[in-house]
C-alpha cells in the first residue's frame, strides 16, 4: 500500500471516531438524558432517605430492645424479690407459728406391778387424751412469746386436779379433767441495745415435759432443762447470756418460786404459812465441735427452803379425830437439795441414722434437822392412831426424821435408730436405760408417763417403735418399759420421806396415736 493510501485509511478512521464522539455528546446533552439522570438521582436520593429511615428504625429498635431488656431485667428482679419475700413469709409463718400449733396424744397403757417381797401382783390399763395447744409469736426481733394450754385426762374421767392431788409443779402433767390449764406462758426479751447478747425470760417458764423426751415422743424439744435435773411446771424469771465461743454457746441464770400451799391470803403473811420454796439454777449450754457438734448442758440446781408438805392436812386430821394435841409447830423449812447434771445428745451422730444421748446427775440433800414439834416435843407418829400413822411417813426431807442428809445419782442413756425408708415413712426404733441410786432425787414431777421412770430408785429399760403415718403430723408409738425397783420412790419425785428397801418389778406396755400440727 502506498503512503497516500495509508494516510487515507488513518484519516478515515479518525473521521469515524470524531462522528462517534459527536454523536455521543449530542445524545448526552439531549432532554431524554436529563430526565434519565434526574430519575437516577431521585432513586439515589430515595435510597439515601430509606437508608436514613432504616437507620432511624434500627436506632429505635435498638432503643426498644434496650428498653425491653431493662424491663425483663426489672421483671426478673421483681420476680426474685417476690420469691425472696415468699421464702421469707414461709419462714415467718413456720417460725412464728402464726396462730397456733397442736399436739394431741391418745394413748393406751397396760400396767402391771409385782411386789416380790409380798408376792402381791396387780395390773390395770388406761386410755388417756393429752392435748397441748400452743400459741406463739415473734412480733419483733427483740420479743417472742410462747404459751401452752394443756388438757390431760383419762377417757371419761371427771377428776379435778384437786381430786388427784396435783401440785402446782404438775398441775397440767397429771391426768385430771377436761379443763385446760396453762402449762407454759412466757416472754423472751432480747434487747437490741445490748446487742441481743442478753435475754430476759419471765412468766410460767418452759421447765416441764423434758428435753430428752423429744426422742421417744418424737416431738420438738419442750424445755432446755436437763431431764435428770428438773421436770416440773414453775413460775419464775431467767437471764440468758449468749456466748461467742467454739464450745460454750449460752449461759442461764434462773430463779423460780413455789408459794406455801396453805397460804390462803395471796398478798398477806398467813398465820400458819411456811417458807416459800426457792429454785436457783445456773446452766451452761454448748456443743462439742470435736464430737460431731454434740450438744451438751451442765446445770446446777438448788431447791431451797423446802417446807414440810401436807401440814394443812395434818391440822385438819387433828381437828377431825379430836386428837389430844394442844400445839403443833411445823418447821419453816426442812433443808435444801442440790443437783449437778450433765447431759449430751446428738441427732444423726456423724451423719449416721442414729440419735444418741447420755446424762448423769448427782443429787444431795442437806437437812436442817428441824422437826415438827407437838405439845412441846418432837413429833412421834406413835402418838397417832395406827390408821393415821402412815400419813406422816412423808413429813420430812428424804428421811424419816429430818436428821440425815443423803447423796444419790442417776444415769440415763439412750439411742434411736432412724430407718431411712420413704416407703415406710422413716420409722424409728429406740432403746433407753436409766438407773437411780437409793437416795436419788429425780424431781421428774410433771413427767406424763405413768411410772415417771426417771424418779425410779432401781433400773429402767425401755424399747419403743415410732411409725409415722404422715411425717411430722401423725404417728403411732408403741413401747415397753421394764422397771426394777430396789427402793421406794417416796413422795414428790423422791423429795419427801425415807427410801426403804423394795423389790418390785413393774411393766408398762403402751400404744399411742400422736397428732402434731
Amino acid at each position, binding site marked *: 500500500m502506498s503512503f497516500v493510501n495509508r494516510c487515507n485509511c488513518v484519516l478515515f478512521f479518525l473521521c469515524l471516531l470524531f462522528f462517534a464522539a459527536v454523536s455521543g455528546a449530542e445524545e448526552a446533552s439531549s432532554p431524554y438524558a436529563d430526565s434519565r439522570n434526574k430519575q437516577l438521582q431521585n432513586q439515589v436520593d430515595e435510597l439515601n432517605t430509606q437508608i436514613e429511615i432504616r437507620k432511624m428504625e434500627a436506632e429505635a429498635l435498638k432503643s426498644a430492645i434496650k428498653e425491653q431488656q431493662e424491663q425483663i431485667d426489672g421483671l426478673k428482679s421483681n420476680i426474685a424479690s417476690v420469691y425472696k419475700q415468699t421464702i421469707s413469709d414461709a419462714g415467718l409463718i413456720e417460725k412464728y407459728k402464726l396462730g397456733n400449733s397442736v399436739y394431741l396424744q391418745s394413748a393406751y397403757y397396760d400396767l402391771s406391778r409385782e411386789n416380790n417381797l409380798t408376792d402381791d401382783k396387780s395390773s390395770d390399763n388406761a386410755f388417756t387424751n393429752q392435748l397441748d395447744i400452743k400459741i406463739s409469736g415473734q412480733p419483733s426481733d427483740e420479743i417472742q412469746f410462747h404459751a401452752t394450754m394443756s388438757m390431760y385426762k383419762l377417757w371419761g374421767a371427771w377428776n379435778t386436779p384437786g381430786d388427784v392431788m396435783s401440785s402446782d409443779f404438775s398441775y397440767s402433767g397429771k391426768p385430771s379433767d377436761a379443763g385446760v390449764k396453762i402449762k407454759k406462758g412466757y416472754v423472751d426479751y432480747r434487747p437490741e441495745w445490748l446487742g441481743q447478747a442478753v435475754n430476759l425470760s419471765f412468766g410460767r417458764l418452759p421447765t416441764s415435759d423434758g428435753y430428752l423426751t423429744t426422742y421417744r415422743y418424737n416431738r420438738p424439744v419442750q424445755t432446755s432443762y436437763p431431764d435428770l435435773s428438773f421436770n416440773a411446771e414453775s413460775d419464775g424469771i*431467767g437471764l440468758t447470756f449468749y456466748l461467742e465461743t467454739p464450745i460454750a454457746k449460752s449461759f442461764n441464770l434462773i430463779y423460780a418460786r413455789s408459794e406455801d400451799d396453805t397460804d390462803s391470803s395471796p398478798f398477806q403473811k398467813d398465820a400458819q404459812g411456811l417458807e416459800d420454796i426457792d429454785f436457783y439454777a445456773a446452766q451452761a449450754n454448748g456443743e462439742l465441735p470435736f464430737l460431731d457438734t454434740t450438744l451438751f448442758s451442765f446445770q446446777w440446781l438448788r431447791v431451797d427452803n423446802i417446807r414440810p408438805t401436807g401440814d394443812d392436812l395434818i391440822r385438819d386430821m387433828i381437828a377431825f379425830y379430836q386428837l389430844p394435841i394442844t400445839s403443833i409447830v411445823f418447821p419453816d423449812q426442812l433443808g435444801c437439795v442440790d443437783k449437778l447434771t450433765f447431759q449430751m445428745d446428738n441427732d444423726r451422730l456423724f451423719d449416721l441414722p442414729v440419735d444418741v444421748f447420755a446424762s448423769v446427775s448427782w443429787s444431795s440433800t442437806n437437812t436442817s434437822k428441824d422437826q415438827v414439834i407437838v405439845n412441846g416435843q418432837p413429833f412421834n407418829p406413835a402418838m397417832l392412831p395406827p390408821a393415821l400413822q402412815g400419813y406422816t411417813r412423808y413429813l420430812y426431807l428424804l428421811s424419816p426424821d429430818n436428821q440425815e442428809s443423803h447423796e444419790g445419782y442417776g444415769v440415763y442413756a439412750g439411742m434411736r435408730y432412724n430407718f431411712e425408708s420413704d416407703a415406710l415413712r422413716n420409722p424409728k426404733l429406740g432403746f433407753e436405760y436409766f438407773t437411780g441410786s437409793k437416795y436419788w432425787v429425780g424431781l421428774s414431777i410433771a413427767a406424763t408417763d405413768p411410772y415417771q421412770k426417771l424418779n425410779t430408785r432401781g433400773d429402767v429399760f425401755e424399747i419403743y417403735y415410732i411409725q409415722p403415718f404422715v411425717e411430722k403430723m401423725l404417728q403411732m408409738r408403741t413401747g415397753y418399759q421394764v422397771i426394777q425397783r430396789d427402793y421406794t420412790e417416796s413422795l414428790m419425785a423422791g423429795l419427801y420421806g425415807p427410801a426403804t428397801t423394795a423389790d418390785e418389778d413393774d411393766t408398762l406396755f403402751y400404744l399411742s396415736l400422736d397428732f402434731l400440727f
Partner: protein
Amino acid sequence: MTSIKKAAHIVIFLTLVLLFSTGAWAENKKIDFEHSVCFRCHQTDDFKPSDKTEQQWRMLIEKNGHDILKKIVWEFPGQKEQILDYLVKHAGGSGAEGIGVWH
C-alpha cells in the same frame, strides 16, 4: 446383775464404740458440705443451715426456687438430695422451746 441389765450395758457400749470409731469418716463427710457447690458462689459466713426453716430449704432446693435467683449447676447426680438432706437436718425453727431459746 440381770440379763436385761447386761444387754443394756452391751448396747450402750456398742453405741460408744460406734461413736468413736466413725469419727474420722464423719469429719470427712462434714468437710464435703463445707466445700460443696454452695460455696462456689457463697462465702462460708454468708449463711448457716439454721438460718432457714425446713420449709424454706425445701422451697429453695427441692423445688428449684433458688434457680430464680441463680441457677445451681449440680456437680454430680445425687448432690442435690445430699445437700438438701444436710440443710433440712440442720434447719432452724423446729418448734423447740427452752429458756432463752430463739430460732
